[in-house]
């Protein structure tokens, strides 16, 4: 909980000194400045995810707006002990996209239409920051065998069910499931190795 000193601190130092959990508590109290601080920190991540999933800038904008409005209305449901704020807001964004896709029965363009060049710079091996680890995960995703990466991306970013993926890839359902497992296992293994090396 935030106490009076925290609130005074926010006024004096500005909201940039607050972490996401503290800002979310303020948003739950109806604090617009705290909300906009969170928006400024995460808008590019939210919009980036929506754009990757939908491939349409206008729809990505609508989804980003809906995601942030859910933050505004439901900030009190965020539990810092269950995970990072970034994961929470991006999970909301993904759900909004998937809901839209399934309601409209519209499948997005599979091809990416945005320039990912800057994101594809090799990660700095000396850095142990969280963002660097995520960036490494992006590389690992790209390095998965094509058929495993395709299944993971169609499922997670395009909202296709296992049967729809089987139809799309013309592979048996069992093969689709195995590819999903193999792909996620590789990502999981790399992810936990990254976590361990960061802890050392």
């Amino acid at each position, binding site marked *: 909980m935030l106490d*009076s000193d925290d*609130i005074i601190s926010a006024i004096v130092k500005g909201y940039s000194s607050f972490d996401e959990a503290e800002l979310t508590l303020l948003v739950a*109290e*109806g*604090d*617009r400045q705290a*909300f*906009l601080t969170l*928006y400024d920190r995460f*808008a*590019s*991540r*939210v*919009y*980036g*995810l929506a*754009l*990757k*999933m939908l491939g349409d*800038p206008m729809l990505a*904008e609508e989804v*980003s*707006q809906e995601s*942030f*409005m859910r933050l*505004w*209305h439901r900030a009190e449901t965020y539990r810092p002990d269950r*995970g990072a704020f*970034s*994961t929470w807001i*991006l999970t909301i964004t*993904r759900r909004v996209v*998937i809901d839209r896709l399934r*309601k409209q029965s519209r499948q997005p363009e599979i091809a990416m239409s*945005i320039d990912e060049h*800057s*994101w594809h710079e090799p990660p700095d091996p000396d850095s142990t920051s969280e963002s660097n680890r*995520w960036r490494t*995960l*992006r590389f690992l*995703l790209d390095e998965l065998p094509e058929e495993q990466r395709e299944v*993971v991306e169609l*499922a*997670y*970013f395009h909202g296709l*069910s*296992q*049967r729809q*993926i089987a139809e799309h890839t013309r592979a048996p359902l069992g093969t*689709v*499931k195995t590819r*999903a*497992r193999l*792909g*996620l*296992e590789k*990502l*999981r293994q790399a*992810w*936990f190795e990254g976590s361990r090396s960061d802890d050392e």
Partner: protein
Amino acid sequence: MDRSIHIDQDTLAVFALGALEPRESRRVGMHLDQCERCRANLKGFKAAADGLLHSAPPVEPPARLRANIIAQISKAQPARRTSWWQRLTNLPLAPIALGLSAILLALNVGLWLQVQEVQQLEAQLLAQVNEDRIAQGLYAYPDVHRVLIEGENVYGSAIYEEYLRFAVLYVWGLEPLPEGQIYQVWLIEPDGDRVSGGLIDVEAGEEFIQAVVRAPAMIKGFDGIGVTVEPAGGSDQPTGVKVLGVDL
């Protein structure tokens, strides 16, 4: 699903990616609620799937998005939220102001509570009048359909017109629920997905209820309506016992 038969790793991976069909996903979810071993097996897949969220490259949105959101939050200020001024009155820096506020508050609290009560009652009555108007209007609509409700100790009918975005349920026999629970209406899509159609609060002594079910699309796009018992406030997807169903 038998608890002793564990979920295979392939299925858990597809579950973590959110790609199981709704029915299978619900079955797996129910098993996971009961099975620690499968929950542990899922954990690694879930962590990798969460990581995927962060793998999308950040892209700066258009400036108008921020402006649109500011405009929207200016209109949507939930009533329970407090202003900066109200929070400042809680600061230890203003004990005198706080004391005065407390006295004024004590003097006005009775009146304020009464006003709140009247406003609440007025809102409830207005909502009820509106629901009655919708129900009457639907009866007068051409090509209206009436189907029977199926449920244990629950009976009644559902009235709808295929091209409208709402239906009306007339139900007898719904029992009041314990505190912390509420009835939730679900519209069933052809692929089995459920969309919330609203909440029904049954009070003691209410033998009959009339509920307007609001749909996100025309009723003809749905295969049925169901009602389940959910935690107060409702759920994103059905989690509780089904008490009635209607085939549209």
